[in-house]
């Protein structure tokens, strides 16, 4: 093939133009559709994030089935506590209205660890107007119970003063009569 003095340059330029055009078309085809509606991002990503499944579903859906706990919980001092914090997220328990798993119920030493996350006075920075705290095991000694006692042997976990108030009431009635 006979080549003129600039045929290689022409071919290079042609090649670069084809490369650029193909690249541009490829870019237009593969760019996501909703890109740039609000800004330099895919606008659909907002709705996708909004549609993410909720795993925690507040206390409301728990109460209709767990009526006994519900009764205690809503009248007790722990009424602001989330069921799901101690027991785990609703999504691990009920899916599409059907029970799919058991949520754990803390027992024994676990209860003590759980209660002291909030109520341990040894951790300073727990203001009295926010939370009532105790020092262990001094609290057990004060109340004249065994040091092996777990918290829930005196305090009902869902309504901490429930038994204590009842006991006090019973005692005062006795005293009066």
């Amino acid at each position: 093939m006979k080549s003129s003095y600039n045929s290689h340059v022409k071919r290079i330029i042609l090649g670069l133009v084809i490369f650029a055009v193909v690249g541009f078309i490829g870019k237009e085809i593969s760019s996501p559709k909703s890109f740039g509606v609000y800004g330099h991002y895919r606008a659909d990503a907002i709705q996708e994030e909004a549609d993410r499944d909720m795993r925690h579903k507040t206390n409301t859906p728990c109460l209709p089935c767990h009526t006994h706990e519900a009764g205690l919980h809503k009248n007790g001092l722990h009424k602001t506590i989330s069921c799901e914090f101690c027991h785990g997220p609703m999504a691990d328990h009920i899916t599409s209205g059907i029970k799919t798993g058991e949520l754990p119920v803390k027992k024994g030493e676990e209860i003590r660890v759980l209660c002291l996350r909030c109520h341990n006075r040894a951790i300073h920075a727990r203001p009295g107007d926010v939370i009532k705290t105790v020092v262990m095991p001094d609290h057990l000694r004060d109340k004249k119970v065994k040091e092996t006692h777990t918290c829930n042997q005196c305090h009902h976990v869902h309504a901490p003063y429930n038994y204590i108030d009842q006991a006090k009431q019973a005692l005062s009635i006795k005293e009066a009569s």
Partner: protein
Amino acid sequence: MDREKPELNEERRTFIKKVLKGTIAGSLLLVIPLRADDLETSEQIPEHIPEQIPGIRGSEYDMSRHRFVFIVDITRCIGCGSCCVADKREYNVPDGNYRTWVERYIKDIDENIYVDCPNGGLDGYQKPREDIDRPVRDTFFVPKLCNMCEDPSCVQVCPVGATFRSPDGFVLIDSERCIGCAYCIQACPYSVRFLNPVTHTAEKCSWCYHRVRRGLLPVCVHVCPAKARKFGDLNDKESEVYKILSGPGVITVLKRDMGNSPSLYYKGARREVI
């Protein structure tokens, strides 16, 4: 003990009555199996869960009409770590990465500051720190989460537009576009970002955008037993956050000199908090 039972039963009866009267539709939703399409809507928009942020449900959600802020009240935080636990569960955050965490600050009488945050505060703070020789003057907890900056560094540096600030002010991540370069992690002055070891894309706190759009509080705010975390719409003059921010209290943001203008405010933060 004998006295407890009748009282309890009575309580139970009234409760059931209330439930039947008040939330009969809601409770039935949970008990009676539903058709698939009903289920979908009931899970997407949980109408049976009472609204926690007024003005979201009902009419069409208008992104330009809201200005959400988050306030952390350091004087109320007790360092229980409920927020961290709930957050980890809500998003199945892999171990060793934190969308939110709670730091413990200790100041001794010589004004030395000791900060720690074992396991991001997930296990709570069960014991006082034992490696401090001098008497402790002050202890406080500082919860950390995404600052939702008005001028976010992460959005500025993301090379592909995979992280962005939505019209309603949330800095979110498009995990479909993220290439996992970690530039945003370098750029975030608050270190709230991490590379998810499962998806290999960047991740961070979203102030539970999916809950907010359903009219519910972020999960950390919802579970906080001490009301140390507050969330709301500043455009709603009745909201608690509006009252706090327009009130006389001292409100600060973290690393103000960075110039990112966070929408996360701290109430009662000492000057040592970084």
